[in-house]
């Protein structure tokens, strides 16, 4: 990376995060994983915990996340990241541990693992990327696919009588006593991206303060498998996904709220 000389009378206000490697990602043009990776990296940099952080990658589009984050990383079996994170955190309580999971990983095959990890109040953070589709396998119906949404495995649109309803994980996990901070955000515009970063930071701070399980669900897009342009996908998600998956906190304990008031 080229280094820039900063003139003495100027301040560096934006730079490449130390918590990201310089690898080029494999994500499709227009994909929101890159934004979310960057937000996590910025937060870890700001908290100064890169050297004590251990991440767990899922099975899904972000399966190779360990190449992009400049920190220790494990790759989990499909859906099992919360169990792995539990194992890591329990034997390394001084480390900062997070899972990065998609909707198929977290809300279908790994439902038991995420619910029980949250319910035990495991002291790790989950970043849950909800784009309402299976991206890596080529656009099949996800547990979060909207009613009527066309995918390669719901070619006439998701029929809720057959496939059931899209699952609202932030609400479900917010109900559990072990969860300290659970929120749903969206990276569909600049304001949303800023709010998402704030939420990610609070989630990691919740972990660092030992307050309980923390999760940020992030509404995102898959323009490739939605067969849309990137901008169109953002608009579609704002119109349809946000309507079904309302943004905001589903759980914030008083102790977490107190963190937000600390300066």
């Amino acid at each position, binding site marked *: 990376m080229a280094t820039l000389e900063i003139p003495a009378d100027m301040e560096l206000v934006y730079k490449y995060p130390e918590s990201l490697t310089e690898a080029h990602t494999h994500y499709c043009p227009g994909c929101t994983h890159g934004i979310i990776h960057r937000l996590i990296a910025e937060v870890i940099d700001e908290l100064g915990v890169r050297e*004590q952080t251990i991440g767990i990658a899922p099975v899904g589009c972000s399966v190779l996340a*360990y190449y992009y984050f400049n920190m*220790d990383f494990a790759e989990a079996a499909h859906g*099992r990241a919360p*169990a792995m994170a*539990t*194992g890591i955190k*329990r034997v390394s309580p001084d480390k900062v541990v997070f899972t990065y999971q998609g909707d198929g990983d977290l809300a279908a095959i790994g439902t*038991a693992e995420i619910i029980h990890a949250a319910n035990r109040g495991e002291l790790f953070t989950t970043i849950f990327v909800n784009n309402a589709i299976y991206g890596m396998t080529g656009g099949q119906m996800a547990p979060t696919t909207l009613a009527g949404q066309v995918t390669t495995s719901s070619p006439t649109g998701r029929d809720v009588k057959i496939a059931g309803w899209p699952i609202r994980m932030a609400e479900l996990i917010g109900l559990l006593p072990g969860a300290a901070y659970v929120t749903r955000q969206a990276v569909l515009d600049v304001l949303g991206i800023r709010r998402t970063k704030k939420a990610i930071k609070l989630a990691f701070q919740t972990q660092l303060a030992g307050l309980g399980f923390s999760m940020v669900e992030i509404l995102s897009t898959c323009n490739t498998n939605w067969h849309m342009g990137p901008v169109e996908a953002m608009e579609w998600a704002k119109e349809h996904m946000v309507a079904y998956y309302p943004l905001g906190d589903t759980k914030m304990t008083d102790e977490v709220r107190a963190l937000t008031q600390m300066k």
Partner: protein
Amino acid sequence: MAKELLEGNAAIAEAAIRAGVEAFFGYPITPQTEVLEHFSKRLPELGRVFLQAESEVASINMVYGAACAGARVMTSSSSPGVSLMQEGFSYIACSEVPAVVTNIMRGGPGLGNVQPAQSDYFQAVKSAGHGDFHMIVLAPANVQEAIDLMVLAFDLAEKYRTIVMFVADGSIGQMMEPAELPPMRPVRPPEERPSWALTGAKGREHNIITSLYLGAENMERVNLRLQAKLKEIAANEVRWKEYDTEDADLLLVAFGTVGRVCQTVVREGREKGLKVGLLRPITLWPFPSTRLGELAEQVRGMLVVEMNAGQMLEDVRLAVEGRCPVHFYGRLGGVIPLPDEILPELEKLDEECH
């Protein structure tokens, strides 16, 4: 240390504790629940980690995580629970992290029952999970050996960075007999965890533990590395015990509980004038094939006795390569074959192999 009267399952757990296990993750299942119960009491009082997981799937993935973090870790289960863990075995084997799993086998298939059985031999030895790999498989025949092999299990797992399965059956798990526990080893402090482990990328490049290798040639390279390691294990770690084989012209082959029963058969057979010996494999993988091949040149015939429909039998036949007749006697579904049933089979072998 003096001998004490110990129950198999509790002795297994206590041996692991003495061997320095830092964490146990598991789920209750008969007939191994006492392993979990012993850990639930002892580990917290020693300041170590005990966690009852929501399933065997979660247990093995917690083990995988803790192993990635460089901790000495294990889980324990019984047949149906072990089936649920097989996904994790495959990931652990490919990622080359050390882990120990015990299977206190019970009657199957399906939910089966809770009687002692050996019907998971194929699963342990030949099909631990998807992909090309083997676990090291240790099979004790009594409580003392169970204790000794638990300690060995951790040493082998760490030496080869691999998964070690300890298979016993419900009768070893539930029986009480005098045995001696090893002295308490100190737990390895976190700062001494291995350099490959996920301990935070402080002053070094980031460590990645994965079992994903895209591209056929990439994955082939990983497989070749795993195969080379398995070859090394096969060359160095075969273990078995022989009883009265020096002059034997008939050989019993049996492992675990029924291996112990066959010691009585050897004695009774000798009393009847049969020159019978016993080979009891202790490592089921790697298998004592070379030694069995040598004995195939020495004896007139072999009788394999198992608490299954004839699973190790296949490995014995592969080792013997037709050099002598190999007979089989087995009981299924949790029935333990007794000397009174085995001895007539041995006499039949004697008559048929002149």
